[in-house]
């Protein structure tokens, strides 16, 4: 199958379930909200080495936030609810409790009975001076701080999301391939409920499971490294000189599929793209197999 002259490989992206939460952070102005949002979603590219996968979903206008202040919507993914709660308590405690003027709210109704406790764990920082407030059935904690108080919702909803959706874009040159990946990222980030957790939404170090070194869980995927094309069993077209991967997490499988579809469309509209494929582990890793050709079945 070809789209705009670009080969779409008949393969599938192998995705797996992860627990997801949406956090809304607000502050006195957009700049401080952005600082908080950036800090709390830092070092969260992959659960291979991080406690969670996280990123900014979108900027929120004051009319869209619970307290009428400017804010950001953030998405967090982890392997289990316990892991997600631990990661969020640590991250909110270290990066938002400490950040000037911020307040933190739940942004996801979530599955019934599957909430995690964030404000309820952070309240102890108040050392007995914390104040609980209930508004419209939701509990909030007010923790005294040096600039006034930190406000954090008690419980956050969670849902079973989908992680590990991916696209691998191979191109003629590094510049052209990066431009295509950037175009795909812009298109994919326009979809609410979708997270591209890597820096700029793009991965240059695609990995395979395992390594010749027993201590490593993952190592470079030499089949997609142009510099090794002549010496290993490669998966790349002969004229490919650069490859970028885009990893996609989403609140639902449909969102991940939609993101992959618009991402492929956008990348195929760029110069120098030779091939788009996807990473999988032979179907052993996850239950969701997103076939690239099926994404365009109706069109």
């Amino acid at each position, binding site marked *: 199958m070809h789209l705009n002259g670009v080969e779409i490989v008949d393969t599938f992206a192998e995705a797996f379930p992860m627990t997801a939460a949406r956090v809304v952070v*607000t502050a*006195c102005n957009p700049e401080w909200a952005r600082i908080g949002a950036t800090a709390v979603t830092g070092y969260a590219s992959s659960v291979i080495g991080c406690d969670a996968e996280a990123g900014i979903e979108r900027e929120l206008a004051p009319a869209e*936030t*619970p*307290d*009428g*202040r400017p804010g950001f919507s953030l998405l967090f993914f982890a392997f289990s609810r316990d892991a997600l709660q631990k990661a969020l308590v640590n991250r909110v405690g270290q990066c938002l409790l400490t950040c000037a*003027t911020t*307040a933190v709210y739940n942004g996801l109704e979530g599955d019934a009975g599957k909430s995690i406790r964030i404000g309820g764990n952070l309240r102890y920082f108040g050392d*007995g*001076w914390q*104040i*609980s*407030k*209930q*508004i*419209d059935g939701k509990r*909030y904690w*007010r923790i005294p701080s040096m*600039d*006034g*108080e*930190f*406000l954090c919702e008690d419980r956050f909803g969670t849902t079973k999301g989908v992680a590990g959706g991916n696209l691998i874009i191979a191109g003629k040159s590094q510049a052209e391939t990066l431009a295509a990946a950037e175009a795909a990222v812009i298109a994919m980030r326009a979809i609410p409920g979708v997270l591209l957790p890597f820096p700029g939404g793009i991965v240059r170090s695609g990995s395979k499971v395992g390594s010749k070194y027993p201590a490593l869980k993952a190592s470079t995927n030499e089949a997609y490294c142009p510099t090794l094309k002549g010496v290993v069993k490669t998966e790349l077209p002969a004229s490919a000189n650069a490859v970028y991967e885009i990893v996609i997490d989403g609140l639902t499988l449909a969102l991940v599929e939609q993101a992959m579809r618009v991402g492929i469309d956008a990348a195929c509209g760029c110069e120098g793209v030779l091939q788009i494929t996807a990473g999988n582990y032979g179907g052993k890793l996850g239950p969701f197999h997103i076939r690239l050709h099926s994404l365009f079945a109706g069109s």
Partner: protein
Amino acid sequence: MLCGSTRAELGEFAKIAPNITDTISVFRGDTGKVKRIGAGMKHGMLKVDGDVGMHAGAEMVGGFLCIGGNAGDWLGAEMRGGEIAVAGDAGHNVGSAYRGSRHGMRGGSIRLSGNAGDELGLLMRRGCIVIDGTIGEFAGASMIAGTIVGKKGFGPRAGAGMKRGTLISYGPTESISPGFRYCCEYEPAYLDLFRNQILSELPRETVHCYRGDVLTGARGELLMLGGG
């Protein structure tokens, strides 16, 4: 119902028409001395065109009680949920605990467009009371939690003995209880949330924060907006 100490049928005093809907009931006529209207109600809407007597909405757990006139003492006493709106004034002990009880209002909200009497929110534990008019003495006394908003300030000795909870004052408060200490002037994020979710007319101003009552741990707060 009881008329004095004798049991009587409601139909002897009032004409009972079918409900306008399943969930709306309407009281018309002279109900100023009828006690316990809406007491213990759980759901639906109860509308009273005129005044109501004592204990209206007491111990209610849900639904909406809308009073077009004035309310007597003990309005919403020990209520646990639901909503009460009063167009006129109310007597003493709105949202309070009954004598001997440990907790007053434990949930829901009361909105009073007129004035409130003494001991508003006595031993209140949760919920929100907003008073547009003036408030008598000892509002929020021995309060355990919850929020009381006084749009024309509070009367003398507000918050006396309060353990936790929040008093928000728009206007001049006659005198601040001696158990309160001035802390700072700031902009609580909580008030932004409160304004956005509950009381949109709350002015966007810095507040003067007082903590008290120091005799009971000083975990309560009196937030005075602007020049309050």
